């Protein structure tokens, strides 16, 4: 590609000259057709849309193309995957969603060449029912503050010059032009940047203790082993802004005076691996990585280590064992990784989102960064908002934003109308996080407030639940995930979580007793303090938090043998409300266990044989009149 063929920057000055030149080049003022090729949009057919767009644009007469001053960019994830494939026209910021290859001719003819707005492809605001044209006017984006995700979606991640156009590597150049490593350390300390991977440990303090530890070489690791189901902040960052990750690591390496960095990415993120590899090669070719970066005495390089997808390998000590080629199991952290980490050498491990924040802090200053957020949690946090909300996707907001603002602002509110669709709980922090009730919706979200409320920040998963969700079932689901993903090294996590799962299953099946509740609470405490690593220590959180806020639901399962949400199969029966049934017969066709009897005919109704019924819920799903009742 063109940019790799370009020469290395021999000095910081040469780099700055090039970057300045780029800004005045025709590329800087080109109109852009931004096609999202993130994993989410790709799954809904973005590759075909991009190919069709490429063909249609190439078919335009040459002079027309020149006059339009157009280029097409395949970008990373815009975060609004649910509405994909997404196409954005820049700089006018017209936002098209759900674009299909068949829409492309019209999009090019009317939208791009003709300059019209194609209304049927616009996003419709669920509150007003009116289409919204501009990217920034959509609630989902308008309510966000993007620092970590500042570049994603607006540039081609495979193009280094695109990154430079967005002020990329300026922070690294600034540091190399005259900062001392100590100065960088101080800046990060003053910014009060806390690790985004889950623990929220002070990054500056971590760097400082690694630097004062005995032993060389020091190692730098970027944790891209995002394992929480439904979370994809780090994937989007690695896919959509790989140079941002590299630049952040390079600045950290400069502060730590280390030469070796590793990015640990799970193998299930092939696009992230591909983009990172490409970006590393490009950065090396241009003298932004490798020996004597930008002609200075600073040398640093990055290798990629691929993980096999074990959840526990996101735990730092297990991750390091995995990088060493051993079984990915955690070890006790009485001796910190900053003293003895990878290969028993002082090591700094931070997650992707943490590193991406670093260039911005250097660029705009620690004081700027520390002015955003709450007293003890600075900056922004990206969340993967999923579940029963209208807008699902990646949301980056300032620390201290309330849960209500995230769910009902950017999230657009609850998905389903009516009492069943009303807000019930939000689960934060991934599988070992907790469920928070409606009374805590105004909780300002930061590391400490979530922990105090009995949940946690984790890496930023956020699952919204309505009244069709059973909290016992939710706790049981997360326990089953953790039981499978526990490495099994220590007894409390391996045996304890499994027994907790067994007890929850009993309760969900209507076999639970009050003694079970006491037992599971007692065991939860033992697992929480007795386990070796954070997976086991936080494993009981789903149970403890649901017991804390939704104890009545457990009690309904145990004492009344009733599942209030109508989820737990053993405790519900399906029946047909004859007054609502119009005899269409849809349920009859849907039933796989021949449990429904009756003849499809107007005026007739159906019956469900409860003995035959296996409670799959297919009849309720197909009934247009809502005549299938669950009790």
């Amino acid at each position, binding site marked *: 590609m063109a940019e790799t063929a370009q020469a290395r920057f021999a000095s910081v000055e040469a780099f700055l000259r090039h970057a300045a030149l780029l800004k005045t080049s025709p590329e800087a003022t080109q109109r852009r057709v931004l096609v999202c090729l993130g994993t989410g949009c790709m799954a809904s057919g973005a590759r075909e849309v991009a190919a069709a767009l490429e063909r249609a644009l190439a078919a335009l007469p040459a002079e027309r193309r020149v006059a339009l001053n157009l280029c097409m960019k395949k970008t990373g994830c815009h975060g609004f995957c649910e509405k994909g494939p997404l196409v954005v026209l820049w700089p006018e910021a017209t936002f098209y969603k759900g674009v299909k290859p068949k829409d492309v001719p019209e999009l090019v003819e009317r939208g791009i060449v003709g300059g019209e707005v194609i209304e049927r492809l616009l996003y419709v605001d669920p509150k007003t029912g009116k289409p919204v044209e501009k990217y920034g006017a959509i609630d989902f984006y308008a309510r966000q503050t993007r620092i970590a995700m500042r570049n994603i979606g607006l540039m081609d991640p495979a193009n280094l010059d695109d990154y430079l156009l967005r002020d990329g590597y300026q922070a690294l150049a600034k540091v190399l032009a005259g900062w001392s490593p100590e100065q960088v350390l101080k800046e990060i300390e003053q910014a009060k940047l806390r690790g985004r991977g889950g623990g929220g440990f002070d990054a500056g303090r971590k760097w400082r203790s690694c630097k004062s530890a005995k032993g060389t070489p020091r190692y730098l690791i970027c944790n891209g082993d995002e394992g929480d189901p439904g979370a994809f902040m780090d994937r989007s960052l690695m896919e959509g802004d790989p140079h941002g990750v590299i630049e952040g690591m390079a600045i950290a390496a400069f502060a730590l005076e280390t030469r070796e960095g590793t990015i640990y990415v799970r193998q299930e993120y092939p696009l992230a691996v591909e983009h990172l590899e490409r970006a590393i090669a490009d950065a090396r070719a241009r003298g932004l990585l490798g020996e004597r970066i930008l002609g200075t005495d600073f040398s640093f390089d990055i290798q990629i280590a691929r993980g096999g997808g074990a959840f526990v390998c996101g735990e730092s000590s297990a991750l390091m064992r995995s990088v060493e080629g051993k079984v990915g199991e955690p070890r006790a952290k009485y001796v910190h990784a900053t003293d003895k980490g990878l290969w028993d050498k002082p090591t700094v491990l931070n997650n992707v989102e943490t590193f991406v924040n670093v260039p911005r802090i250097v660029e705009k200053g620690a004081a700027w960064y520390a002015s955003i957020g709450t007293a003890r949690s600075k900056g922004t946090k990206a969340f993967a908002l999923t579940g029963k909300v209208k807008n699902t996707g990646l949301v980056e907001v300032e620390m201290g934003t309330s849960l209500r603002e995230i769910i009902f602002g950017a999230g657009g509110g609850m998905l389903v109308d009516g009492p069943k669709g009303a807000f019930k709980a939000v689960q934060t922090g991934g599988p070992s996080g907790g469920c928070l009730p409606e009374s805590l919706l105004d909780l300002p979200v930061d590391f400490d407030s979530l922990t105090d409320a009995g949940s946690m920040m984790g890496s930023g998963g956020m699952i919204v639940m309505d009244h069709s969700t059973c909290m016992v079932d939710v706790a049981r689901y997360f326990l089953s995930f953790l039981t499978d993903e526990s490495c099994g090294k220590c007894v409390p996590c391996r045996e304890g979580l499994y027994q907790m799962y067994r007890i929850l299953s009993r309760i969900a099946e209507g076999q639970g007793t009050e003694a079970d509740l006491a037992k599971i609470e007692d065991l939860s405490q033992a697992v929480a*303090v007795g386990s070796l690593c954070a997976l086991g220590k936080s494993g009981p959180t789903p149970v403890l938090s649901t017991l804390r806020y939704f104890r009545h639901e457990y009690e309904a399962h145990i004492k009344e043998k009733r599942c209030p949400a109508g989820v737990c199969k053993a405790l519900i029966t399906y029946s047909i409300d004859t007054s609502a049934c119009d005899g269409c017969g849809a349920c009859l066709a849907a039933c796989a266990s021949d449990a429904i009897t009756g003849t499809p005919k107007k005026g007739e109704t159906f019956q469900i044989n409860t003995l035959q019924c296996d409670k799959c819920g297919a009849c309720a799903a197909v009934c247009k009149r809502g005549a299938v009742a669950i009790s």
Partner: protein
Amino acid sequence: MSEVNLGDAPFTMTIDGKRVEARPGEMVLAAAKRAGIAIPTLCEHKAVESFGSCRLCMVEVTKAAWKGWKGLMTACLYPAAPDLIIETQSERVLHVRRNVLDLLLARCPDSTLIQRLAAEHGVQQTSFSVREQPDLCILCGLCVRICESAATSAISTVKRGHHREIGTPWGGPPPACIGCLACAHVCPTGHITFEEHGATRAIWGRSFELQRCAECGAPLPITVEQASFLVERQALDASYFSRCESCQRRATAQTFGRLARWQKLGLTQEPDARQEGGKR
């Protein structure tokens, strides 16, 4: 392994109200043991590095230097430090211990070791669901670690979570195994079994020939593979494992007898000693 450089001088800390001497670099468990304070363990063995998996040796640590900060730590991995206050029998410690033993009893109800330890902690019967088709393996990992440090890493833990087990490559007989029995020897519950008939030994689905005495032909308590492994690893003489114990004793006695006879004759050296050389 200590966090701070403590020098070489011994120091004291408090365990269960008793002043106990500890050495720099030592773990709390070792210091307690030396002072005669019993802390139960299952995954600890002097031949291998501490692992911290059974969680039985958890103790409550109070750090005076950290404004009385308290936490539950595994004694086998927590570095001893001056002025630590350790409680080995606090309510929190016993709570975890009881639960761990209760859980292990559900996993291995037939293990007499676990039954005894559990009973000592007031757990006569498990309060959890007993595993279907239980065996005696408590997954302490001692076998894997001893194989790694003393032998050939022929076995490993495989699978995750509740499905974790001690396994061999692809579930078959482990090709790297030398039949040394170190795993069976350290297994605290007797889960790892082996058989020996005549000059053959069977373990992990493999059968090994025992080394034979070069003189009488009797089998030695060591396999052929083990002998060559040890000869190579310890750089021993190739004939090191060539005689059985009684033949060795007889040969030694004969040598002494000969020497005594020659000494009686006033000779200082055995005339044919040089031809005898080479054997131990």
